Every structure is written in C-alpha cells, then in structure tokens.
C-alpha cells in the first residue's frame, strides 16, 4: 500500500508534514481561551501514523513533545475498529499514556479509502480540570483522585456530533467551564484542520506516496539518530540531583539519578538509581519521563534531528515500576513538571561529562508558579490567575547565562503585567531581574526574575510552588563556576506590612492587600571567577 517516494519528494513531504503541525498550532492558540494556552503557549500539536507513531510535531513546549504517541496508542488500543470519520477522542489518564490531568489530549482520525490512514492530535494544559485545588495541579495531592477529572481515552465527538454528556460532565466539574470548553473547541478545530490538510496532501500526491513518506520520515530520523549516537564515546556517565522535598514542609530531599551509555546505536537512560515514588504530587508519569529524556538528548544531537518516532526508537528509558519516574496507579503526580525539569538538568549534566566540548552549567529549575482564584470586584466573576516565572540560564564556556528564561522542557511566556491587572483583581508591584542571583564564574549564570502580586479582591486561595529553594540543590555551576541563588516564596501581610517566608510549596489563602512574592533561581556560573 505504501510507496517509497523518491528522495526529492521525500523532502517535500517531510516539510509538508511539519507545516501541517505548525498550522494546527496557529489555529489552536488563536482561538483558545485560557491564558496558559493563549499567552503562555503551553500546548503542542502533531500528526501521527495510523498505528500512533509520531510523524511531525509543532514545537511550542518540549515538555509535551514526544509523549502524545503514548496516549494515542491507548486510544487506538481501546477503540480499534470502532473509529469513524468525524470522531474525536479525549484522554488525560496518566496511567493510560497521559501526563498529568490538566493536559487534555484530543485526537481525530484521518480517513482515506475508507480506513484510518493517520491521526492528528493536540495536547494543551488547561487552567483547571477540577479536583482538590484551584488549578488542579499541586505538589500536595496524595492520590490521583484528588487531581480532577480523568478521561480514560473516551469519545468526545461521534461522527461530527459532540457527545453531550461529556461536555455536561466537564462543565459541572471544572472551576472555569467557559475557558475549558472554549479551549476544547480550539483543540478540536486544530485537529480537524490538520486532518483536512493531510487529506489534501493525499489528493495531491496519492495515498501510497504519503504513507511511504510518513514511514521514510521515521526511518530517516532513526538512521540519523543512530549514526550520531555511534559517534559518541561509549563510556557510561552518570549524574545526580535532588528535589528540595516531596512537597510538604520538612520532608526529605528526593534523589534523581541518571546513568547514560550508548549501546549499539541506542542511548540508554537508566533512572534506576532515582528515588522510589513519593506520597505526594511530585511523581512523574512515564510519558513525561520520556519527554525529559528526549529533550535533553535532542539538545546534544544538534538541530537536524526532528522529533518523531524515529528518535524515540533510539532512546531507551529505564525506570523501574514504582519509582519516582514510573509510579503505579493511583499515585498522585499533578506537579510532575518540577521533577521533569530536574531530571532534564541531571541528564544534561551527565551529557556534559560525556561530550565536554558542549558542557554547560545548570539552568535553574525552580519554576515559580501559582494559581489563585478570586472573585473580581469589578465584575463579580470568579477568575483564576496563573503565572510562571523564569529564572537564570546556565552559563556557557564563552558567554554568560541568559537572564530570566523558562528553560529546558518548559518555555512558557511570562504573563504581561497589563493582562494580569486588566483581567484579574491583582496589582503587579514589581517585575524585575534579581541582581546578583546568577552564579559567579568566568561567565556568570543568568539572573532570576522576581514578581510581587498584591491582591485587590477580598480574598483569594490556591496553590503555589517554587522548587530549588534549598541552597544545597541550587543551579549547578560548572568548571569552577558557582551555583545560582535559590528560588524563594514569601508573603507580605497587607495590614502589618511584615514579610514572612513561605515554604517552597503549599496552599495559600490570602486577603485584600496581601502580596505574594515569588523569585526564580539564578543560573549556574561557568569557569573559575578568580581565574584570569
């Protein structure tokens, strides 16, 4: 059925696949509602083979790259032949290939000659999907059932008709139904656009060549990846890092360890030395564990290796069941991003040892973030403010670290101050780089960002977290460079003006005039600062 395109048509098809994914992304962000999607771009789109293997992705946020195929495989396994033109499926189940519950994934089948020939998919971080905490996500959940609605790979649209019951259930269970339903519409529109474009491609080139092109894209990437791995040294390298705690004040640090080696053109990322799963929301679903490994590896493979199933076939992640990076149902995991970022940093540290010419100091992974819900006195409506602050990038052999970035698998935009104040009952009192926060070095680490949010409504509540507040685990310097300054959370009382430190992660209830202060860590420095 599939026909092999000539090398020139192959390049043309590969480029068309990428364009399809990018066009899907444009449809999605332009028509979405939650600031986390529309302002911060926390989403991805992709096209997939009929069996679920990834062919091409848009590239908004790497944390969600390379993991949709796990969820799509679950959809295919469950629905098999009962898939029709005009269908759409929704899933977020962390133990059926999903990530954490706020990441809703929507898939639509693409039909040609009366059968499924491809899939399109969209993953987006929704602002709230219900559960114990506003914004759903928290380090302090203790079982999956506190983490909001779970969609176990179910039908959302049936032959063009929305499955009304699903929509009703969503609307009744989430804190901002208009935003959630609007964002779902945007995801479906994006998938449909992708399906339409694949159909046009089939019309233009014929089904056989398009299918052959999809196969060839995967094979080419696998060959490319394999050849690059074969050029790497064969010795094993390892690195470790720690999370401050499991998410509750006073708990012990959590070890993250990675051992890497190349064997027969495949890179093995062995996480067996990492901690066992923890009784909090800090665990990482296996799909996200893979996303961290893919990201770190891709940085060291260079710019020519796209993300698709071919890359995935050459990276083997070993994470024992019941461990931090492969927890068992129904372990909590909504705040998985903190460990994902730390794992990425550990793998990059190890790869810096393996390929010293590309060594780089650690970027901060403090990821200060919060969701606070409050009734806006201007409108009387409930609103959920979410923001994500950047910190310092790691310094390099020839240049200081970048100031104020959201590094590694994350790349969210910071919320514009004027949007925060126009649409939510808060004043941003300052938004600035933290002088001296970058690690010392011949090249200093990047500076962290500080933002202060003062509440204008009567009260607000929600969760916040800042990882990397423990100076022992600050962003690592390299080759004699110093560590970046840790992150920090604090609260200034509106009545007394007194400022008190907050634990790194928690649930917060504040009153009018109170100010939440968050600081992202600085990046690690590179090289001995005293050396000439």
């Amino acid at each position: 059925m599939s026909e092999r395109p000539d090398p020139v048509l192959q390049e043309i098809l590969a480029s068309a696949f990428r364009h399809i994914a990018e066009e899907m992304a444009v449809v999605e962000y332009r028509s979405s509602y939650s600031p986390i999607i529309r302002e911060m771009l926390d989403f991805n789109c992709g096209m997939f083979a009929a069996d679920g293997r990834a062919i091409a992705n848009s590239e908004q946020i790497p944390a969600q790259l390379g993991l949709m195929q796990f969820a799509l495989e679950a959809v295919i396994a469950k629905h098999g032949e009962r898939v029709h033109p005009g269908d759409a499926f929704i899933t977020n189940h962390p133990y059926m290939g999903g990530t954490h519950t706020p990441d809703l994934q929507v898939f639509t089948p693409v039909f040609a000659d009366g059968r499924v020939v491809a899939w399109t998919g969209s993953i987006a971080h929704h602002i709230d999907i219900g559960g114990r905490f506003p914004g759903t996500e928290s380090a302090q959940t203790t079982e999956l059932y506190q983490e909001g609605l779970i969609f176990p790979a179910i039908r959302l649209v049936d032959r063009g008709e929305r499955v009304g019951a699903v929509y009703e259930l969503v609307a009744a269970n989430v804190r901002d139904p208009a935003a959630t339903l609007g964002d779902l519409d945007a995801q479906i529109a994006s998938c449909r656009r992708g399906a339409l474009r694949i159909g046009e491609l089939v019309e233009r080139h014929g089904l056989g060549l398009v299918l052959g092109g999809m196969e060839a894209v995967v094979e080419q990437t696998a060959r490319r990846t394999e050849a690059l791995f074969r050029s790497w040294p064969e010795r094993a390298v390892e690195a470790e890092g720690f999370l401050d705690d499991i998410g509750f004040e006073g708990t012990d640090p959590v070890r993250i360890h990675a051992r890497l080696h190349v064997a027969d053109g495949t890179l093995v990322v062995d996480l067996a030395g990492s901690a066992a799963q923890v009784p909090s929301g800090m665990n990482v679903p296996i799909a996200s564990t893979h996303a961290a490994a893919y990201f770190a590896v891709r940085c060291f493979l260079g710019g020519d290796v796209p993300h698709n199933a071919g890359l995935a076939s050459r990276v083997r992640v070993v994470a024992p069941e019941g461990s931090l990076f492969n927890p068992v149902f129904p372990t909590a995991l909504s705040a998985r991003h903190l460990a994902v970022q730390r794992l990425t940093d550990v793998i990059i540290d190890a790869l810096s040892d393996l390929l010293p010419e590309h060594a780089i100091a650690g970027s901060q992974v403090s990821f200060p973030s919060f969701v606070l819900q409050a009734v806006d006195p201007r409108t009387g409506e409930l609103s959920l403010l979410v923001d994500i602050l950047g910190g310092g990038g790691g310094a390099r052999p020839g240049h200081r670290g970048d100031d104020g970035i959201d590094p590694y698998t994350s790349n969210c935009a910071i919320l514009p101050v004027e949007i925060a104040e126009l649409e939510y009952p808060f004043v941003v009192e300052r938004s600035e780089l933290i002088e001296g926060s970058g690690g010392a070095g011949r090249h200093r680490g990047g500076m962290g960002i500080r933002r202060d949010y003062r509440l204008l409504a009567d009260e607000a509540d929600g969760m916040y977290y800042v990882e990397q507040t423990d100076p022992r685990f600050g962003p690592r310097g390299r080759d004699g460079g110093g560590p970046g300054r840790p992150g920090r959370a604090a609260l200034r009382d509106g009545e007394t003006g007194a400022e008190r430190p907050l634990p790194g992660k928690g649930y917060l209830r504040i009153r009018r005039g109170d100010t939440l202060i968050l600081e992202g860590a600085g990046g690690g420095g590179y090289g001995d600062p005293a050396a000439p």
Partner: protein
Amino acid sequence: MQRIGIDVGGSFTDAVLLDPEGRARIAKVPSTPARIEAGFLAALEALLAGAGARPDDVAYLAHGTTVATNAIVTRGLARTSLVTNAGFADVLAIGTQMRRRVYDLWTPEPEPLVPRERCHGVGGRIDAQGAEVEPLDEDAVRAAAARMRADGTEAVAVMGLFSFLNPAHERRIGELLAVDLPGVPITLSSDVVPEFREYPRASTAVANAALLPLVGAYIGAVDGELAAAGVAAPLHLMQSNGGVTPAARACEQPIALAASGPAAGVIGGARLAADAGEANAITFDMGGTTADIGIAPGGAPQIRFDGDAAGTPISLPQIDVLCIGAGGGSIAAVDAFGALTVGPASAGADPGPAAYGKGGERATVTDAHVVLGTLGGERRLAGGLALDRGLAEAAVRRDVADPLGLSVEEAAQAVLRILNANMANAVRVMSVARGLDPRAFALVAIGGAGPMHGCQLADEVGIPRVVVPRYPGVAAAWGLLATDIRHDLRRTWRRPTTLIDPAELDGEMARMEDEARALLDRSGGVATGEELAWEVDMRYRGQAYNLTVPLPPRPTGAAGLAAAEAAFAAEHHRLYDYTPPVAETEIVTIRLRATARTQPARSEGGAPVDAPAGAQRVYDGAWADWRVMARDALAPGTPLAGPAIIEQEDATTVLHRGWTAAVQPGGALVLERA
C-alpha cells in the same frame, strides 16, 4: 509633470518615472551604502536625463529606504535610554521570557536594544482603569535625566504601565526630560502604540526612539540634496503599512519604516495585477537571497498588527509578508544522510553562485538554471555578467548529483523542485492557512528571479495564471508610485460589545478622526480623495487573540456595532470552523485608516522594438531547443506558446511547456496554463 519612485535596496537603487501620459521609464544604479543619498540622487538624475525632464518638472517623489531596517539589524542605533515605572526597569531584559531556540542551550539570547544600565524606573502608577493611584515621582525623573546626561544618551523612550488608558505620566515625563535633556529626541509609547501589553509597547517605543536621530539625519540629507538639485516636490516615504507618509512625519515615527522594504513589492505587485485585470493577487518577489510572499484578496494587501524587526517586537501595522530563504543564490546541499536542502543559506552576490566565476564554489539555484539552460548560453545577466556553464556543472555534480546518484541534469531539476516546494509551502501558509484558496488568485512574479519560477510555483499550488509586469525587476519602485498616503491610528478601548454606549464610542472616534485629518493635512496638496476607514479588533470574551473586522463609519451606533459583531462571528467561523457556545464578544482596539490618493500609477509598455529572437538548448526531461524572445519585441496580442525564454533588461521569464504567454495592452505579460 513627472512622478518618480525611488527604492534604495542593499545592492541596487531602482527607480521609475511616470510621465504625464503614463509612460514609464526605469533606471537601476548601484546603491552607495557609505552615502546612501548619493545613489538616490544618481538614480533621480538618470531618470530625468532619460526623460529629458527638468528637476522642477517633478510633481511627486516617493522613496523607499531600508535605512531603518538596516539600523535595527546591525544595531547601528542611537544610544537610547528607557524611562519606565519603578520596579519594571527590566521590561526589555525579561521580554516574554521565551527562548527563541528551544533546543540550543549554547547560543545566547539577543541583547535588548537598550541595556539594563540605561533603563530607569521612576515612581508613579496608573491602574488598569486609567486612574492615577500613585503620583509621578518628578524628582526621580530629574535624577534619571542627570544619569542620562552623564552617560551620553542620544534618544529616550518613555513607557508607563497603562499609558494607553491615561498618558498623563508619560507626557509629564516627556516635558521634564525635554527641559533637562535639550535636543535629545523623545518617544512616548502612548504616541506610537496606544495598545495594551507593556513589553511590545516598550520595545516599539525604544526602537522608534533609537531610530530618531539616524532617520532624521538621513531624511534631512535627502531633502538637502533634493533642494540643491532643484526638486521642489514634497518627499514621501514608504512605510511598513504599505502607504506613504510625508517626510516630516517619518522623522517623528521612523519605526513605521522598519518593514517597508517588502511592503512596496506587495503594493506594487498587487496594483500591477489589478491593472492586468486580476482582482486577487498573490505577490511573489524573488531576488538573490529571499522570496517574499504577499497576498491581496480583492486587491487589498493583508495587514498584520504585530511584527518584529531583528528579534525586537514591533507593534505597528505592517503589510503581511512571508519571507523565506529562497533566492537565486540559495545554496543546495546533500547531508550525510542523503537529504537535499536548498537555502536558507545563500551565496549572495559575492562570491555568488559558482557560475559567476568569482570564487563561489557551492551549487546554487542559479547554477541549477545554468545547467538546465534556462540561464546562460550566449545570454548575460543584468550588468553584463557572463555565466560559466562548466563551473555551474561542476558544482551541481559535486554537491548534488554525485551524493544522490543522479545525472547532473536530474540533480539540477531536483534543486528546483525542492526550491519550488519550499516556496509553495510559503504560499500555502499565506493562503490556505488563512482560509483563502490560491486557485482563485493570480501569481504576480516580480523581482529579478520571480519570473523564472512563476510557472512552476503556480503549478505546485494550482494557480491558473501568472502576471509578469512590464518591469518585474523594479516592481518595488513601481509600488512607491502605486501607493496611497496612509496613516494608521489605533486606540485600545476594551468594552463588552453589549455594554457600549454609542455616544461614548462616537466621542472616541471623533477624537481619532481629528487626529487623522491633521496628519493628512501635512501632505501639502499632493493628495486627493481622502478616505477614513474604521476597523475594530474583536474577540469572544475570554479569548486573547483578536480578529480585525470593519466597523461602519460614524455615527456608528448600535446597528453599526451589531454589523461588526456579525462580521466577526462570520470571520471566526471561516477561520476556525466553529462558533463557541457562549458567543459574547468584546471589542479591544479601535483602528482608523486614513488614506489619500496620489494619482494612481498606470503601467504602459514601451514601444515594441526589433530584437532578434534566438534559441537555447534547455533540459526539462530531455534536451530541446527553446525559443528565446526579447520582451521589448513582444507586442500586445502576440500569442506565444511555451516552451520559451523571454529576456528583458531587468529579468528573465521562463515559459514552461503547457503554458502560454500573451502581452496585455498595458504591457504586462500574462502566462496561462494551456
């Protein structure tokens, strides 16, 4: 009376003169980067001499310049400082906090236009309703002024939070700085970008300020040369929005020129297509390094409201152009895994393609054409450059044919297939991705290399007709004469549509109208037919991305708002295929486009001349003799069936098998699929 358009590019200065009968005369002279105004004057003199006209015959002079663009790209800008709110002095350094190259941990993010040490925070706040909640700290402004005096600041930008609602603090800061920093130009963000989102507003204001001294000096120099040469016609400059603006206004808002280069090509291409009877045009402007794709449904080039220049966000309306790295100099290469890529790297003009024989060794698009015979042979390029077939063949063989196991002719064809596919993707991004069907459009092939690729690109995307204007190589200069005077005003004015008080809306619109009329008055009598067109940015409540739809003229009233809302709903459905269940809308920004016409240009062909037709061996699957025609010798009505090559002083048109060409009375060549 003569009308003149002069477009100064990096390598060449293109110029067009239209005489009172509408006949065109063109000139192409080398640009003079060290003293740009010298090349400008040389082009002007060449045109006047050719037309036998005197400087005081010039009635209108429009000028396109990349001086602002280049200054931003090369950071050849004035030493600029920023004054903003205390606590927000890092607004530029933080930006969006997003990384441009996600997988590249090693390349530093670009530095902002103003370094941190020249960003000054001063006390005072306006809230989200536009009310002052903390008075301006005037002492802090004076202290900042003292630091700016000490550090040699040459220009200042002022960006206050919520200044688009209440510019009082920004204006007061401007007054204080004017006293303490005499002679230093100042840009207030509320003057340039009265819209929400502080970072793009700050970034745009800073870029504007940084250009003020430079662009002011350049325009002053051009004005001086013109006065010395005896030209009294008012000088107008091309803006990124596709309209021209009087020189004095350009000196106040130089950032409006930053993306004007590609805009003139789109305007010129769209107008020339309209002259040839094509309502819907996709403009395809291809040169040595890049191809610019624009789209003009109904003859109106599409505008976008957010852009950037060299990584700096610029919030100003600009003609929407997609620029990709595809040109005659684009380098073809096969990597270790057998993947063939063409561009974006370019051999440029120096050393240029291998066939130039100037030391370039890499295979390029031009070399592929030389191998296939569509360029070269007895024919030379503009400027008399001969092309060396042996060098081209050697490069294509080594870089493409041998690695792929193809013959050198097949390899050259492969290079063009990849190139055309890349350009076709760009056309699809500009058309199908916006809900526009390219099959309902004509492709306007302009630029030195556009007419060589028109047929194949049209085949690739299913476009039925290609228009090659009379002078495709100087279409941008032509665009300067085809364009209107244009001023874009906008005001962030957020309201749920249902809660708008029509009287309040009309008051806001009246203020904008007064401002627009004052701007139009500055063009000093060269324009007629003033027009005001209103638009509104609208969105469903909760969305952040707006769509811009027409707003009926004043008095707009409830019925007018309802019409805008209906237009918005239709456009949203057209683009995204759905209507949300809760369809409440809000308006975000009111926009006013004030235009005035400067006698539209009409293209007329030169008289046919006797030029010998030749022949050329060309490979398109097999070697065959193709006719070579002189464009100047083609008369209206002459039907011509492909394959053929049509030569003229500023471009080469390749007419493929299966295509026909006909000269229109206006001089344009229209290629159609047979």
